[in-house]
């Protein structure tokens, strides 16, 4: 009888997977095992972030018993990595009971929170329960900027106090910084803050339309011209690069910044629907939090029925990168972080291109030294007859409205 097949650290491994994780990902993708599940247990929140896509009203969250049932079904389905998020998860009075049940069922539990309700007691309890990692949103080291984004005075101080408490308890903490026009100037401060706190950070450029389709948050996105100096600084060994040792899980510009990249995904567009999915507070199952393809509701069906049987999951699962009519031919594909969910939300087509991905891909390519990089979609648009271009522009304008 031989022992353990191998050991490897996951945290420093992101975004690239080591062989053991790669093998696990490959097996779960091939067998359609939902290895990783992101579960929002509330959309209620005690902050009102300017870029947030959620409706914070409670439209009938799963009860504790319903959540327990879902957790049991996920455990039976092979889910190991479970992320609880929201909304603000600490607004659920039964949060610790949910976490306790999750740990009893053997899940690896990570949390996403603004942490402003975490005090010493909560931090201790999270450690006792065996929660592995807590990700806290920090927008700036400048309270005026951070608080203006969350719209809660004193929120930065409370979040930072909580991070220190969590660290003192020995929990793994990670800072997530969604970057937008409001906090673009804070980028380096957040990097420095993460180093000072001794935690990894992730910079995320993903700003999405609201759940009801309202595209107003998109106006908060930093433009390519605004982002380019940051990219340049990072790749030229500036201060940002010097801090890399303190931040093992950093990422810039990724729509799926917390996920593990793996060769196991081969011709797949991402992990959504293959070995990961998202569950809303109301029990709706989606391939991913960023992919508005409702596959079924867990009040009406079991998780396995939705995961294995829904036509929506099968449709998403059938998509291959090589089938993407435009993007598969793109010369700068290696610089692109196209997200199929965002392609649907922003371009209306799960398999199509969308402006933000092309813009960022060209930016990354230019930063890497590619001369005049142009995405396949932009090239196609440029080569169309003028009349077609005019129609496209008119159509794009009406979509914006």
């Amino acid at each position: 009888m031989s022992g353990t097949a191998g050991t490897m650290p996951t945290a420093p491994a992101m975004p690239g997977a080591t062989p053991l994780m790669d093998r696990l990902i490959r097996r779960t993708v091939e067998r359609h095992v939902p290895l990783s599940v992101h579960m929002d247990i509330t959309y209620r929140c005690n902050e009102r972030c300017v870029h947030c896509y959620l409706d914070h009203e409670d439209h009938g969250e799963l009860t504790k018993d319903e959540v327990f049932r879902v957790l049991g079904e996920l455990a039976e389905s092979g889910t190991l990595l479970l992320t609880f998020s929201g909304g603000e998860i600490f607004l659920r009075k039964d949060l610790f009971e949910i976490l306790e049940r999750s740990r009893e069922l053997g899940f690896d539990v990570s949390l996403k929170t603004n942490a402003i309700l975490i005090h010493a007691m909560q931090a201790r309890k999270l450690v006792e329960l065996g929660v592995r990692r807590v990700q806290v949103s920090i927008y700036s080291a400048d309270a005026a900027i951070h608080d203006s984004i969350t719209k809660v005075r004193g929120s930065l101080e409370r979040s930072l106090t909580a991070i220190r408490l969590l660290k003192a308890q020995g929990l793994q903490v990670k800072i997530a910084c969604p970057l937008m026009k409001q906090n673009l100037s804070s980028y380096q401060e957040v990097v420095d803050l993460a180093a000072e706190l001794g935690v990894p950070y992730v910079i995320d450029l993903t700003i999405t339309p609201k759940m009801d389709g309202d595209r107003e948050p998109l106006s908060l996105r930093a433009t390519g011209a605004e982002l380019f100096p940051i990219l340049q600084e990072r790749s030229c060994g500036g201060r940002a690069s010097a801090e890399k040792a303190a931040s093992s899980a950093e990422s810039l510009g990724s729509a799926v910044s917390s996920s593990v990249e793996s060769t196991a995904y081969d011709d797949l567009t991402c992990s959504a629907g293959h070995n990961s999915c998202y569950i809303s507070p109301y029990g709706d199952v989606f391939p991913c939090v960023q992919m508005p393809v409702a596959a079924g509701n867990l009040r009406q069906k079991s998780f396995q029925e939705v995961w294995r049987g829904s036509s929506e999951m099968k449709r998403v699962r059938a998509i291959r990168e090589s089938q993407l009519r435009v993007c598969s031919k793109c010369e700068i594909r290696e610089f692109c972080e196209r997200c199929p969910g965002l392609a649907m939300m922003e371009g209306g087509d799960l398999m199509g291109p969308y402006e933000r991905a092309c813009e960022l891909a060209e930016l990354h390519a230019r930063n890497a030294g590619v001369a005049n990089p142009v995405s396949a979609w932009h090239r196609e648009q440029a080569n169309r007859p003028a009349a077609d271009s005019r129609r496209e522009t008119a159509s794009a304008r009406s979509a914006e409205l």
Partner: protein
Amino acid sequence: MSANGHGHARVFCRNPKLAWREIDGEIVIISPEDSSVHELNETAGMFWRSADGKRDVDEIVRELASLYEAPVELVRADVDELILDLTSKNLLVDSLMQVRP
């Protein structure tokens, strides 16, 4: 009864701080302390599932020997090696002892 040299049964349990799941027939374990990932092969997994803090090692060894139709002493040697490996990684703990902080 298997003994630890002091006449006590050896009983081990999985470290309760771990996350683990049987995926596609193999045991995958994640330690929250250092985020390390471990994988057990099928036979090691058989022992892992039995390490519930209630059954002593000798009982598990006899079951495995019967299941695999292998000599008890051979299985015991393998299990001892596995226990050393798993306890050194703090994945498995002696039921009589506190979990290492």
